[in-house]
């Protein structure tokens, strides 16, 4: 399986690690040269320098042959449009996107994003889990 991850963040690098360990071919695209160099120094030649919303840069990153695209940009509006471009222009089969505001879930679903990862929900669950353990220890 060929995966393209859009946007270099702590979360997306973790996802890349996991996909590579499971034997997937992964490319990560970001426009920040320093971030790219940092990831390449630890992971090898797995990055593509480019604007995540530039059609030529996405083409160069191999979106046209991707089995799955994971959009992990900083804003919902970027992830929404990137996901739609991946679907309608590059005909990517599976598109996964991070979602920061649950109120935008309707738009993502409407535009055909296959999987939504709701970042605040994950954070809150994790905090509740950690706090719960702490409270139990207190009792």
């Amino acid at each position, binding site marked *: 399986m060929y995966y393209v991850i859009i946007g270099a963040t702590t979360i997306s690098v973790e996802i890349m690690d996991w996909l590579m360990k499971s034997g997937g071919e992964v490319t990560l695209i970001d426009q920040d040269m320093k971030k790219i160099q940092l990831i390449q120094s630890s992971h090898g030649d797995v990055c593509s320098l480019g604007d995540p*919303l*530039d*059609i*030529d840069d996405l083409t160069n990153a191999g979106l046209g042959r991707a089995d799955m695209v994971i959009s992990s940009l900083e*804003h*919902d*509006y*970027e992830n*929404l*449009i*990137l996901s*739609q*471009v991946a679907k*309608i*222009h590059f005909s990517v089969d599976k598109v996964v996107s991070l979602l920061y*505001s649950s*109120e*935008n879930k*309707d*738009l993502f679903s*409407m*535009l055909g994003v296959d999987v939504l990862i709701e970042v605040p929900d994950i954070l809150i669950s994790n905090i509740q889990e950690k706090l719960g353990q702490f409270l139990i220890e207190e009792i």
Partner: protein
Amino acid sequence: MVDNISDEIPNISRPQKIMVVGCEKFSARTINHLSKDGHVLKVVEQSSDRFNFLPQEKIDSNSISTVLGDYTDRNFWNQIKLNDIDIFIAATEIDSCNLFLYHLATHILKVPKVFVILKDGKLANIYQTFDMKIINISELVVNSIDNYINHDEDI
């Protein structure tokens, strides 16, 4: 795709109520132009400094009203009354934000007519395949230069 906003908004007897999101220099000129044609404008912007691009006399006479807020936040839109808006123009400086606002205005807020301004010609070509009212700035500039060079028209 439309050549310019004025072609799509005819001089009819009833002034149109138009919401413009984003107030950089280009959109401020458009707002001023539409206001001169008698339309009523509501301008949404995240940065209050940018309202300085608008003509003060039009704000004083209430033909242009301003709303300050984070237009990428859905909670902001939940607080804005849009039931009397005829036309919505997404004109921020970020193409992806304009496309997001297009989808929001069309599918969720149900504004009757929505325009989106795009700077990236390739992105505009992709979305041209949909029934979207796109104002493609790069194409307008190219056409304008072409007309000047090949047809002796003023830019």
